């Protein structure tokens, strides 16, 4: 059982210890096996160690896989070390979201098979998991970012089956985003920083914008050189 001192510590080492303690079989790969994974993706690793998602539809699926890995790792940590004062309804919501993101991650891993990028190592050292504001703020960032990411590359997808899958996932991410917004401030489900006040359209972002933000939470950096 964590003491308050340990919970307030919030440094990476503490987070990783408890992460490993609570991680299930499906999640243990992140960070733990990353360094030791097979080198079948050597050609996607740049000299600086950045992982490139590749090109074409597989590149887009890997891009999605990278983001889902990040989200799954984040929520796994959130549930492993719940913030102070987490209400039971919030625990229930966040556990569901965690399970959805894990399902998304495992789906891409299975669908991409040998074409999948490696397991990524997250860096959540900037997030104080003991603090509700910090955790929900990070959650909102991840969900909002995920929505803009999927919607920003939809037009690049060539295979309609993959577009259908992306469509099936992005609306769930938007449901998550709205819920997190509501947990932060009741009524903040379609905030003007995400939904244009004139057109009512959600923002979209290209991969370089998304990855610039995502990479601040990743030790293993990701690039999408073939997409703008």
């Amino acid at each position: 059982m964590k003491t308050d001192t340990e919970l307030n510590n919030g440094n990476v080492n503490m987070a990783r210890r408890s992460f490993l303690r609570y991680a299930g079989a499906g999640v243990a790969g992140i960070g733990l096996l990353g360094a030791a994974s097979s080198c079948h993706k050597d050609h996607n690793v740049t000299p600086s160690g950045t992982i490139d998602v590749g090109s074409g539809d597989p590149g887009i699926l890997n891009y999605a896989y990278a983001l889902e890995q990040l989200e799954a790792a984040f929520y796994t940590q959130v549930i492993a070390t719940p913030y102070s004062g987490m209400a039971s309804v919030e625990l229930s919501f966040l556990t569901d979201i965690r399970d959805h993101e894990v399902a998304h991650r495992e789906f891409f891993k299975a669908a991409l098979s040998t074409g999948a990028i490696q397991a990524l190592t997250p860096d959540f050292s900037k997030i104080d998991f003991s603090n509700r504001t910090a955790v929900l703020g990070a959650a909102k960032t991840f969900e909002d970012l995920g929505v803009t990411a999927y919607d920003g590359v939809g037009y690049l997808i060539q295979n309609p089956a993959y577009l259908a899958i992306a469509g099936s996932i992005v609306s769930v991410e938007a449901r998550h985003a709205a819920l997190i917004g509501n947990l932060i401030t009741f009524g903040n489900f379609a905030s003007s920083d995400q939904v244009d006040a004139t057109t009512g359209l959600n923002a979209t972002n290209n991969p370089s914008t998304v990855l610039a933000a995502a990479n601040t939470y990743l030790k293993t950096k990701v690039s999408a050189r073939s997409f703008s």
Partner: protein
Amino acid sequence: MNLFNIIEEIEKVDPEFNDRISPRRDVIKNMSSFGSKVALAAIPFALGDLFKKAYGQAASSSVISVLNFALTLELLEATFYNTGMGTSGLVTDSAYIAQIQADENDHVKFLTSAITAAGGTPVTAASFTYLDFTGGGNGTAATNNGPFKTVFSNYQTFLAVAETFEDTGVRAYKGQAGNLLGNQTYLTAALAIHAVEARHASAIRYLRMSKYGATVLPWITSTASGSVDVSGAASNDTGVAAVNANYGGATPENTTVQGGVDITKLPSLEGSTTTVATATAAFDEPLTMAEVLAILVPAFAQPK
């Protein structure tokens, strides 16, 4: 940001720019003719929309049909919220619902101008013989005596209908994405609206659950069925059997196989498998245009 400076800069490389942003259809050119002298990504979102409108790919009649289908749904939603918000004493959470109302009305305006700019004729409220939000339309007229007859007299009924409207809107947009495959302008716009409808769906569900004790979650959580749940009985998590069809169809909400992968057989934090609840909630499913129209016509709307 000085809009006129930007336009002046663009006119240096594209003297026809002022013509492009006017609604005159005959000067709308394909985006590729503009080149890459201005980085669209560097332009703030609202102005980006203007560019997208000006340089939108010439829309085929099928793209215009998709946009008009979307506009039809937005008109229904906007009218629904406008009527509800305009009914004295009905809506208690005014600020909350007003946001959704504003978005739907914005979607109507956006799609109307997009269709016009693309050379199409947008549907309008006058395109319907009647609208009946109680679900009681008989093909000839509204009866206002359908399964949701208290939709504008009972706030909880209003919210329940709103929830299903939003869930159905999400599925309808999703079902059209394939028809816009590869279309940077219109697919991106459709996906961007689709995301907001999903936010709305989540928001209505959260409101009903957190404030009014409804047994719903922000996401659609379904149960397994032995065969394809076309009727939607196992997929529908609203507790209102009258809307089963909204959650069913050829790809019902309780679908657990995605792209050939059985989600329930994937590992989760609970173990080597994933529950049906998680597998169904983690993915939303499309409705075809025909399925949506069958749900709406003639019960809710009758086109002229």
